């Protein structure tokens, strides 16, 4: 019996090892004596092919780069299982929240030493806000920001013309936006404005722009190390205007299925869409028949925008940190200059590669996209898009419990105070 159990245990262990070995793995010596640096992205097949092509230009006699093919659809699940199995590749695409959470738990290689050194690839050569948001409280940086997401309003120029409304431009106000949405709705659009960012879990952070722009308090004092959230009078005023917009049918309500909003916009069925610059790459490929533009987010007094950087992380157990850093710096600088001309998804955080993005937009005639992205990068007031903390899901549940009902008018605006109070309890209990 003992022997049988032993054999069964061996089989199970072997099976487990085989299963985990198939998932990825960090750098090691390949058969030819070269160090293999593994890489995993969440990009589409088309962008991955461009990355592969660009990586072919990386020449180092001691390093081989191998990209692990993974469907972008289940990237989060794949990352979670590789993290649990401690089989993360040397370099993997990561969000700001993942980077901060994993760095806080000692799971990522801290590059702060290398980034503070000399040379062309240091912290000074990145967009300052991106680097600031990627640092943990104790100054560690478990990854390097790669692309910056900027946000704005996509608009259908013809729909605006038909409704007799001027197209959005820098400096337009929240009142202008709701008034335009109302006119577009009355002109026949199901909703004048589809803004998932104002109704989903991240919505209080988006509405934070209203209060910040009007001189009020931000919703959260920080997304990385928050001590409190606030819904002051200006914030409440902003939410009130949104509630009125939803009530009149000008703005899509909570629960609106925004999964195909991009297609509906391209088909001329959504005249105004709150989203990010990344839609431009898809529009260049799909070529919508409508005339479209991209305007900065509205303001009250001062320009305010959302800020969010994605990046590339490295697990703490990478076998050859130096080789990995070499590939990382090549990816973040040179690769983007080769990929973005064909697929201008976002502006690089590494300032030296930003021209490639803006040149690509200019070449494609996307002048409004270029000017809005530039305006966003220069905006004096910014807000993170969501909490990046480990307890973010607990505060999300509090937002889910109150926000949709407040927007639908099922709960009074005064419940914003109850919501913030409960989120503050979550913050307190986790600090």
């Amino acid at each position, binding site marked *: 019996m003992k022997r049988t159990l032993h054999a069964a245990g061996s089989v199970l262990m072997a099976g487990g090892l085989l299963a985990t070995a198939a998932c990825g793995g960090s750098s090691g010596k390949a058969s030819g004596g070269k160090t293999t640096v593994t890489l995993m992205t969440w990009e589409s097949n088309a962008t991955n092919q461009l990355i592969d092509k660009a990586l072919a230009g990386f020449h180092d006699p001691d390093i081989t780069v191998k990209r692990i093919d993974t469907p972008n659809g289940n990237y989060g699940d794949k990352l979670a299982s590789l993290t649990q199995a401690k089989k993360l590749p040397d370099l993997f695409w990561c969000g700001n929240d993942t980077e901060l959470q994993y760095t806080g738990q000692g799971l990522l290689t801290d590059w702060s030493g290398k980034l503070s050194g000399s040379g062309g690839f240091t912290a000074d050569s990145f967009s300052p806000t991106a680097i600031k948001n990627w640092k943990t409280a104790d100054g560690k940086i478990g990854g390097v920001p790669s692309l910056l997401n900027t946000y704005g309003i996509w608009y259908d120029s013809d729909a605006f013309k038909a409704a007799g409304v001027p197209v959005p431009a820098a400096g337009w106000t929240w009142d202008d936006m709701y008034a335009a949405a109302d006119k577009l709705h009355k002109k026949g659009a199901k909703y004048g404005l589809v803004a998932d960012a104002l109704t989903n879990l991240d919505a209080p952070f988006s509405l934070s722009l209203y209060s910040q722009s009007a001189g009020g308090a931000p919703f959260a004092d920080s997304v990385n190390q928050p001590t409190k959230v606030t819904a002051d009078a200006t914030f409440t005023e902003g939410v009130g205007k949104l509630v009125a917009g939803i009530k009149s049918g000008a703005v899509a309500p909570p629960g609106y299925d925004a999964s195909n909003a991009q297609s*509906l916009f391209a088909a001329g069925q959504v005249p105004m869409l709150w989203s990010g610059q990344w839609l431009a790459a898809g529009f260049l490929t799909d070529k919508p028949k409508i005339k479209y533009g991209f305007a900065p987010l509205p303001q009250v007094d001062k320009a305010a925008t959302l800020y969010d950087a994605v990046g590339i992380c490295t697990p703490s157990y990478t076998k050859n940190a130096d080789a990995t850093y070499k590939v990382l710096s090549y990816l973040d600088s040179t690769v983007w200059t080769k990929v973005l001309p064909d697929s201008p998804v976002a502006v690089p955080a590494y300032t030296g590669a930003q021209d490639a993005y803006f040149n690509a937009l200019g070449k494609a005639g996307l002048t409004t996209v270029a000017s809005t992205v530039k305006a966003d990068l220069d905006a004096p007031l910014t807000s993170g898009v969501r909490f990046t903390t480990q307890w973010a899901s607990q505060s999300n*549940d509090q937002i889910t419990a109150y926000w949709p009902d407040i927007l639908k008018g099922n709960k009074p605006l005064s419940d914003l105070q109850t919501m913030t109070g409960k989120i503050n309890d979550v913050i307190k209990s986790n600090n």
Partner: protein
Amino acid sequence: MTATPDQQLHRPPHPPPHPPPRRPRRGRGKLTSDTRAAYMFMTPALVGFTVFVVYPLIRSAYFSLTQYNGLTTPTFVGLDNFRRMFTTDPSFWPSVRATLLLVVLYVPLSLVIGLLLAVFCNRRIRGVRMVRTLIYLPVVLPVVATITLWKFVFNPQVGLANQVLSWLHLPTSEWLSGSSSAIPSIVIVMLWSVGSTMIIFLAALQAVPTELYDAARIDGAGPRTVFFRITLPLISPIMVLQVVLQLVTALQTFNQPKILSPDGQGGPGFSTRVLMLSIYNHGFPTLGRVAEFGYASAQVWVLFLVIVVVIAATARFSSIWTYSDHAS
């Protein structure tokens, strides 16, 4: 002192029952070849059961008392996870509500529709085999594919369901995007696979002796009397089995709300965040969210206890309405 009935009738008291025959004693530790063979054949199943059921069960019981994200060492927190679940987590009670609503809608509907379809398919009419095949077909199709198709059907802006309603000049629905219509929409999708229920009922119906029907007809019983006085009582044990199966299916529903909810998290709001999805959301978070295995394990145990209680209650009360040949 009053006399017992036996004394009153001058009968001798009942003799004591015969003691049970004693088993011949075997030598301790000695196994017959048959027993050894039995253990050998059982071993793979026992190993599998221990490794994949007993061990995870014990681990999850332990994790339910800890704060554990799967990456760092678990921290023992006692009953904090259960306290959070019942007091401060705003999603727990809505999850319970969504689960119960799904159970209340799905279980009776699946039983009634399954039975009606089985009765129809039990008739000797032309083309009935084709009908049976068509009803059973969704059961063999890939679940995720069919659910995804339903997502397109229920899209409130461009979906087929609202298009059809518009053509018929009927009011459209928000379907999965509406807080009150989301669970009923999910139930419709689940009922799409009612063929599995139908097939079991069909087998039960075909096992009812035809002589009983013949006798009933000779006695002048109508179809309704035959159904309620003969068919239903005779298939009632299968009905109990179906109730239990459908209850477990409904309580463990995961695929439909996961795929169909607009945000994949059980929205809008918490309207489709059934308990299984809540467990998944906490245990296997999306990008950028750290796992809460401890809290998810606590929820697993609550769901487990709910299932045990519901099934025990069903089994306990089923004897009231189940027909049995052995009933005295």
